[in-house]
């Protein structure tokens, strides 16, 4: 192997200014307004009158270096070699010459890129690694996203919604990504307690930290076995013990599945940021297309489109009509699992005599 270059430590990332297009450098912090020109094109106008066009395309997020080289080639042709990614993993081509916008859009369409995601639409789905790379995944993430977006893609590139709908997928309750504050989110869940591999516990795990990891105090030491034991009725299947003790696997192919939570948002527009709340406690893991999950999401989305006022996010719509109405209009069954019995439970119980029939 050829000689390696000298490594450096603690240099941090390159300074962003190295990568900014000239028009951005010149107008940094001096933008005046922007306009959305189509589902995937917007223009920002500076105080100086200078303009930059952004053309946004969908990405599966898990991309090959070939994909990156392809978009680089396009950015060289139309954007003087400048592009960026959004916080939701879309690709944005940054064009400073108006005459290049249309040819860029045409070439992207020709090559099969999906242009869109701007405005009151569904943007790229924020998601986690799933079975592609995670040890604690209760479901796949990329596959769920693909199955979902194949059905909902019109809301990415064409159709408008009452407001933005942020979708997210987390493959377990660790919820890497902002799943707990998304309009509609899918979460991989377990339904059965971890199994204790007693012979491995003594080598792989620290008993005190394993005991301490349990949020419901279901785990206690088992000195006879030099291991731990679980009070099964107390276990809520969070898998936190497995994170600190690999000898307590919790994956269970027959019982792992997908929960749907809805109504979260992070922006402060109109209403305060909101957590997502449970809509469907469990649906089966049914790869490769998870039809039950996709159907339930479509049901929720359609009810929202039907009932929401313009600019109302999904959570705002539900707050206005009431959760009791949400279950009525979506037809989703309300189950025992919907009633909170964990940390913040009491705040969620109805302490009033007012509700809708």
């Amino acid at each position, binding site marked *: 192997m050829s000689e*390696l*270059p000298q490594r*450096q*430590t*603690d*240099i941090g*990332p*390159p300074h*962003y200014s190295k*990568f900014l297009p000239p028009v*951005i450098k010149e107008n*940094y*912090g001096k933008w005046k307004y922007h*306009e959305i020109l189509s589902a995937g094109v917007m223009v*920002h106008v500076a105080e100086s009158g200078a303009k930059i066009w952004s053309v946004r395309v969908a*990405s*599966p*997020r898990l*991309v*090959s*270096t070939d994909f*990156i*080289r392809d978009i*680089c080639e396009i950015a*060289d042709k139309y954007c003087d070699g*400048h*592009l*960026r*990614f*959004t916080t939701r*993993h879309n690709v944005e081509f940054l064009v400073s010459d108006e005459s290049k916008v249309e040819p860029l859009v045409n070439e992207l369409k020709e090559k099969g890129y*999906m242009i869109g995601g701007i405005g009151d639409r569904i943007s790229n789905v924020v998601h986690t*690694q799933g*079975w592609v*790379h*995670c*040890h*604690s995944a209760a479901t796949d993430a*990329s596959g769920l*996203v*693909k*199955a979902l*977006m194949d059905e909902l893609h019109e809301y990415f590139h064409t159709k408008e919604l009452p407001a933005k709908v942020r979708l997210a997928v*987390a493959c377990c*309750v660790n919820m*890497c990504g902002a*799943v*707990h*504050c998304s309009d509609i989110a899918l979460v991989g869940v377990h339904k059965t307690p971890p199994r204790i591999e007693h012979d491995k516990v003594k080598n792989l795990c620290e008993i005190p930290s394993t005991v301490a990891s349990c949020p419901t105090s279901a785990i206690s030491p088992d000195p006879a076995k030099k291991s731990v034991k679980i009070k099964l009725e107390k276990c809520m299947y*969070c898998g936190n013990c497995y994170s600190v003790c*690999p000898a307590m696997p919790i994956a269970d*192919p*027959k019982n792992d599945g997908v929960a749907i939570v809805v109504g*979260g948002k*992070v922006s402060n*527009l*109109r209403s305060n940021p909101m*957590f997502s709340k449970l809509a469907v406690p469990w649906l089966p*893991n049914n790869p490769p297309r998870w039809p039950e999950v996709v159907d339930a999401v479509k049901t929720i989305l359609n009810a929202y489109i039907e009932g929401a006022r313009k*600019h109302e996010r999904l959570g705002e719509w539900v707050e206005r009509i009431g959760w009791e109405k949400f279950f009525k209009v979506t037809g989703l069954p309300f189950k025992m699992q919907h009633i909170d019995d964990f940390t913040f439970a009491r705040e969620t119980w109805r302490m009033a005599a007012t509700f809708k029939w």
Partner: protein
Amino acid sequence: MSQKHETPLLDELEKGAFPSFVKEIKRAAEHSEYAQDLLGQLELSYKEKVTHWKHGGIVGVRGYGAGVIGRYSDVPDKFPGVAHFHTVRVNQPAGFFYTTDALREICDIWDKYGSRLTNMHGSTGDIILLGTKTENLEPVFAELSSRGWDLGGSGSAVRTPSCCVGPARCEWSCYDTLELTYQITQRFQDELHRPMFPYKFKFKMAGCAVDCIASIARADMSIIGTWKGNIQIDQEEVRNYAKNGMDIQAEIVDMCPTGCMSWDGNELKINDEDCNRCMHCIAKMTKALRQGEEKGATILLGSKAPIVTGALMSWVIVPFIKLEPPYEELFDLVERIWEFWDEHGKNRERVGELIERMGFPVFLKETGLEPHPAMVKEPRRDPFFFWSEEDIEK
């Protein structure tokens, strides 16, 4: 090279309109043994409905305790190409801007030493180089760092800070999110690369209350831009919005959460005293309304996902701070917060959970922050509060 494993279930996900990750893995597999066996193992997961990755592991680059996620297959005999499949987290440039040359440089390194698969980007913001073997980690790091790239955070460390597009391409950014992200990252390189905390610590910089980086939901410290002073109105542009079909009464005035606006068909009035700066009107009438002139940020602390005592959103600890280089006031505050956490935090306890356990007043006292009504939605309901020595008459 031709495909090594049959993948009937994954093949199904090559169909359909949305861009396919399976297609991407297959493209990488044309030149990569890793990607070949990733396809095989993933197909097995699809068949058996279970993950085939083993837990944890001890890998990294010399001297660092962060930036590499160890991953091993639990079926290495079937899929030797992914027996090791470690992830390298590369710290992204603030705002996710690139030149094509920079991206190609990373691709070249990854084609040589890794799976040819990436996430652009990971949830926290890093460039994720997905899958290589242990002996390639040092070479990848040498190639990257000699060209000016460094690793991001993982484990009980500062996680790679990230931000919205900020003043680079947004008129609403109330402070320079990119520069602050860069400066925080540089200032805390040691804390980022050599885990020294009870658990992870995330910074996210959002230029305004729209919070495109989701800082309030997923950063231990959420820095959200805001302003003081009156919203600036261009009445002519307001009338243009009305002319072009916007129902200003219904879409703007009636949706204002504080009811501080009125519209008589000709002039929009805002009672700025009552405005809570939610950004709805500004976001919907980008040409007509602009934020007040005194810009700064609100600092919020403590958000996290539900593991393990339930999800938290960040709450206000500093109602307003001017954020300009060299940011010393902010850095001092961060260090005081970390001292508090280091002193009292249990293993795997996030700073938000610690403050919940010990009490917000204790946190304020120990970090020297003054109580302010903006920190709470409402004062306490119960009569059980503490006094200190100096409040007691002897």
